[in-house]
């Protein structure tokens, strides 16, 4: 058989620039200076701002100054509130990670380095807007003032667990906090957020929805269903892609990140897309405000890629030193979101090291007090977990005959076990 191209084909398998033992390398990232990206009017057509997906909206510069058209010009009290929310999220993570290590629960996931992504969004949208998060947006609950004790009780599956011991730790759900039940199955929440937004528009409501997904999970079909439905129906929704560079051990190139940015996914669907410095609280805040305004004025959905870094392991079951250089986190060129906002507050004369240290202490104490209370209701490894017969409730609204029988069986087994 003759072939015009007779050389053998070869299969391309992408690889990250560095692995354990190599120097961490971020030199391939193009990082524009803070303040250089223009801020389009929120009424702009998606087709007019395609270049936004290839750059990076940044507000905080290296000296902690807020610069450029995206500066949301927040007052000092709001900035301090933001700092507190991020620091509280981190203190909570530190504490619960330790509790898991001590065996008080089965599992935990931190969001270290990604606090701005959730905390800024929570401050930029209204408290009754609906969030469809992943497991890494605990900052939404913390910022919205949800009870830390309740979060801990969920993690301990104890007698006060709002989810009655049924869900893996950190898979929170709170209707009151506008926080949709976290699913273990990646990507499912994104089309659901679009559906919620469509329902809000259908009902002539004023509330909008926001979804979050990791960059890894954008490969799932669900993400692409969501993109199509959101643009077709101009759903009032913000679709946040948190590009923290890693999906467990797979670098972002495995999700297609070497060939195009995740924000660029928006273009193919005709959606507005932004790409922001995810470790810059002010940039995340400003981008979310921009997208929210579009949604609220019936301009439709926005995709926001948050360019950030997962500074720690995927979860308590993971050891990142097995697949990435251990000093990679320290080399991340966009810094730490808490440090950067602190630096800004200091630079504008609204904060200092003493107050920062005092706040840190206060938040640790707050976590300790919440921890003492939550643990008094039991821990997973302790005795007073939820009554097991409740596991047969809520499968359906009413308990059908077969579950009544199974509940009786479980009770008989429990008594036999304790004999």
């Amino acid at each position, binding site marked *: 058989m003759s072939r015009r191209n007779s050389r053998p084909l070869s299969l391309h*398998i992408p690889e990250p620039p560095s692995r354990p033992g190599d120097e961490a390398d971020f030199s391939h990232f193009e990082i524009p200076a803070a303040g250089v990206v223009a801020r389009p009017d929120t009424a702009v057509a998606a087709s007019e701002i395609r270049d936004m997906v290839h750059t990076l909206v940044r507000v905080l510069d290296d000296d902690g100054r807020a610069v450029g058209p995206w500066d949301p010009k927040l007052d000092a009290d709001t900035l301090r509130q933001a700092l507190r929310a991020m620091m509280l999220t981190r203190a909570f993570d530190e504490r619960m990670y330790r509790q898991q290590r001590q065996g008080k629960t089965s599992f935990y996931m931190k969001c270290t380095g990604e606090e701005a992504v959730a905390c800024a969004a929570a401050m930029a949208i209204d408290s009754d807007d609906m969030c469809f998060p992943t497991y890494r947006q605990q900052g939404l609950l913390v910022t919205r003032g949800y009870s830390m004790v309740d979060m801990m009780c969920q993690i301990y599956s104890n007698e006060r667990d709002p989810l009655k*011991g049924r869900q893996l730790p950190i898979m929170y759900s709170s209707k009151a906090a506008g926080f949709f039940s976290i699913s273990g199955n990646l990507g499912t929440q994104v089309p659901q957020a679009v559906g919620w937004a469509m329902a809000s528009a259908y009902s002539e409501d004023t509330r909008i929805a926001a979804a979050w997904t990791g960059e890894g999970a954008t490969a799932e079909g669900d993400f692409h269903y969501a993109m199509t439905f959101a643009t077709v129906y101009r759903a009032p929704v913000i679709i946040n892609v948190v590009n923290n560079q890693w999906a*467990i051990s797979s670098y972002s190139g495995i999700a297609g990140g070497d060939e195009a940015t995740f924000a660029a996914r928006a273009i193919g669907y005709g959606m507005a897309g932004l790409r922001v410095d995810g470790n810059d609280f002010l940039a995340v805040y400003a981008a979310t405000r921009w997208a929210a305004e579009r949604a609220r004025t019936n301009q439709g959905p926005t995709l926001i890629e948050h360019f950030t870094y997962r500074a720690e392991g995927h979860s308590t*079951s993971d050891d990142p030193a097995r697949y990435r250089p251990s000093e990679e986190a320290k080399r991340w060129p966009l810094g730490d979101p808490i440090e950067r906002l602190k630096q800004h507050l200091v630079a504008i004369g609204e904060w200092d090291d003493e107050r920062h240290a005092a706040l840190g202490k206060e938040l640790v104490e707050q976590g300790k007090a919440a921890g003492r209370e939550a643990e008094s209701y039991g821990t997973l490894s302790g005795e007073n977990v939820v009554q097991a017969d409740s596991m*047969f409730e809520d*499968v359906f609204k009413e308990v059908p005959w077969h579950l009544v029988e199974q509940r009786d069986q479980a009770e008989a*087994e*429990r008594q036999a076990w304790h004999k």
Partner: protein
Amino acid sequence: MAQMNMIQALNSALDVMMERDPKVLTFGEDVGYFGGVFRVTDGLQKKYGLKRCFDTPIAEGGIVGVAVGMGAYGLRPVAEIQFADYIYPGLDQIISEAARLRYRTAGEFTSPITIRSPYGGGIYGGQTHSQSPEAIFTHVAGLKTVIPSTPYDAKGLLISAIEDDDPVMFFEPKRIYNGPFDGNHSRPVTPWAKHPASEVPEGHYSIPLGKAAVVREGGAVTVLAYGTMVHVAIGAAEATGIDAEVVDLRTIWPVDIETIEASVKKTGRCVIVHEATRTSGFGAELSALVQERCFYHLEAPIERVTGFDTPYPHSFEWNYFPGPIRVGSALRRVMEA
């Protein structure tokens, strides 16, 4: 011979097959450099190179779909789905495509693919790291479904699955990756090293698909089980002192009907054990088969021992799991009937 736990035995099966046959390759989420979240593909990328063992995007429909395409070309892909709980986005490619390709093309295109996936509970994994979805696949015409219960079987069966010319669903009981488990969760874990089936040949061998194994001989009652529950059933037989014959199905579809029939006709009693939810579980099919073929030999109603019909609850793992008490009381009931 070498001593292996189930993870090492599965790794060895892949190693042997990749060594023998350049058409065999493996891929899945975190499978490449990292070697899989349960380390089943550990070292294979290093040994065979990037293109024979690699990471995939997080898209189970994509993973299965590309496996079908590679199979159509003539390769023998072994795709890993990280947890059986995440197989659902891949169902259309498995059910509508892989399973039917041979039939709808009159044998012109086939799907010689293997889909491996850890399944089952007992690790505090909550609703999405604990499920046992095997019955779904036995309901689909054109799929084989295999579930090993020891390192020795795991390797021999995985080799057969890879060599098989039809699509094989290969579910791995993750609770017993590192050691057998009789359901007594408060006792310390025993490693595989103490179990005779951890002696595994280093080279190629295979265990035929569709053949069960009688793992404990007995005359009073037949217990049909697979995966983790084989060990729970043996433990319950020992604890109750009942002379139970435990049949490890190994391949759940096509099931070894001859071994089942012979055993139940001998004992006259049958208890079916699986961890999956009860309703429309594979136990229902087994119960129907035994009733159809062994009715006049039965001295007691067939019993099913299963997980409850709820999502797998995180903190009530041991209330949910069909452990020694549930299996033991079913054994006693059929003996008293």
